[in-house]
């Protein structure tokens, strides 16, 4: 497979604006940010969660509790995936039973990652609620899952790929839609 064209659908400013809006929506929906925990799904959800937490701190005056979830061991395609998944550390070092959890991921697509994340979370206890925040919802769900907070809805075809790039690991902030050549 080879990418023969790409279109930038969000730039750094658009990403920043989307995260700020999501932060406001989280404050609006949850009575107290103190009861909210922001949990990023590795890899890019982790960076998104950090930025979201910093903005929540700015607008609500409280730095929310944060966590990181690695869903590798919960994947339903663990034994069949084309590329071999690498296991990374999970860090949920707070009592989940007293928190409203906001799961954070960069792209919502089939919903299978979120299914795995929900399963992983259940192993840590029973949170008050679990909400989902994503930067991009590109459609094509394969499970009955939806996001509570969406940075941008980007209609795509399955032949396309959505690539989120963050300055922390990719050197730049942007969202690209890539056309895949099917060989």
């Amino acid at each position, binding site marked *: 497979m080879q990418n023969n064209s790409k279109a930038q659908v969000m730039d750094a400013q658009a990403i920043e604006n989307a995260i700020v809006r999501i932060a406001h929506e989280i404050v609006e929906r949850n009575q107290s940010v103190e009861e909210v925990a922001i949990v990023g799904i590795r890899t890019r959800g982790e960076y998104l969660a950090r930025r979201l937490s910093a903005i929540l701190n700015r607008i609500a005056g409280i730095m929310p509790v944060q966590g990181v979830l*690695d869903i*590798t*061991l*919960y994947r339903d395609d*663990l*034994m069949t995936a084309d*590329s*071999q*998944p*690498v*296991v*990374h*550390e*999970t*860090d949920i070092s707070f009592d989940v039973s007293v928190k409203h959890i906001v799961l954070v991921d960069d792209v919502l697509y089939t919903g299978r990652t979120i299914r795995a994340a929900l*399963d*992983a979370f259940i*192993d*840590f*206890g029973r949170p008050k609620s679990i909400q989902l925040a994503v930067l991009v919802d590109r459609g094509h769900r394969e499970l009955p899952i939806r996001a509570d907070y969406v940075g941008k809805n980007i209609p795509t075809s399955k032949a396309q790929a959505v690539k989120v790039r963050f300055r922390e690991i990719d050197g730049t902030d942007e969202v690209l839609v890539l056309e895949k050549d099917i060989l």
Partner: protein
Amino acid sequence: MGAWKQKDLLGLEYLTKEQIEHILTTAESFKEVSTRGIKKVPALRGKTVVNLFYEPSTRTRVSFEIAAKRLSADVINIETETSSIRKGETLIDTGLNIQALKADIIVVRHNASGAAVMLARHVDISVINAGDGWHEHPTQALLDIFTLKQKLGRIEGLKISIVGDIAHSRVARSNIWGLTKLGAEVTVCAPKMLIPPAIEKMGVRVTDKIDNALQNADAINVLRMQFERDETTAFPKQLEYFKNFAITEERLKRAKKGIIVMHPGPINRGIEISSSVADGGQSVILEQVTNGIAVRMAVLFLVSQARR
């Protein structure tokens, strides 16, 4: 690190530095699972792990069993005392039968050096060496190295001494392979009769003076004196061994400050190590046991993921 391709773990001799590091990194991620309220992840759900032990073992077998169960695998223990092995079935026939039962991983402990390698050649399913004769005990060395790395932050450049019956120790051999590949300086120390010929070729220094082994060492790995294993060998008397080679508080005082004391267990208190050292602040013996689970989870996970 590309995809993991090894369906078996037979010894550290057969792994590259990068592969050993990949196991250690994966184990770091698995360590967290054992700290959870629900100590279980579904990664090996539907897989069957068979513990095939031809030698008595409690800690290694239990450690593998717990590791497999924390990954949600089903575990069967075959004890040679009560199995058809008593009727003379060969290792390979037993392995083929386990494969025919559609198990996915065999964890084998055998008193013959090379047993795991031979078994892996005859079955398609994964084979993990849990100790074969005097040859290798790779998961023990991996957990030793993992513990060292957790304690000291690195392996490269460390000075590690291994003390005890080097000649008959698969733990020593696996540690030497692993540590030297990762760039540690290894010294082995034992009475002359317990040092195998040409051990220097493995890239280690040799001494028969315990104080030489302790001097400048960042860590010392004290092997179990296996008086029960081979009574025909001319072992020094236990008391004499204690006098000349045991790790005691007195001797540690002359060693580097903060030296780490390891032991693969089970310990012989008052033979190769004094009780006060085994239970003291420099001992990481029980941390090794805890880390063994994470390391074995990583190994079980990786071999089951092998892309062939």
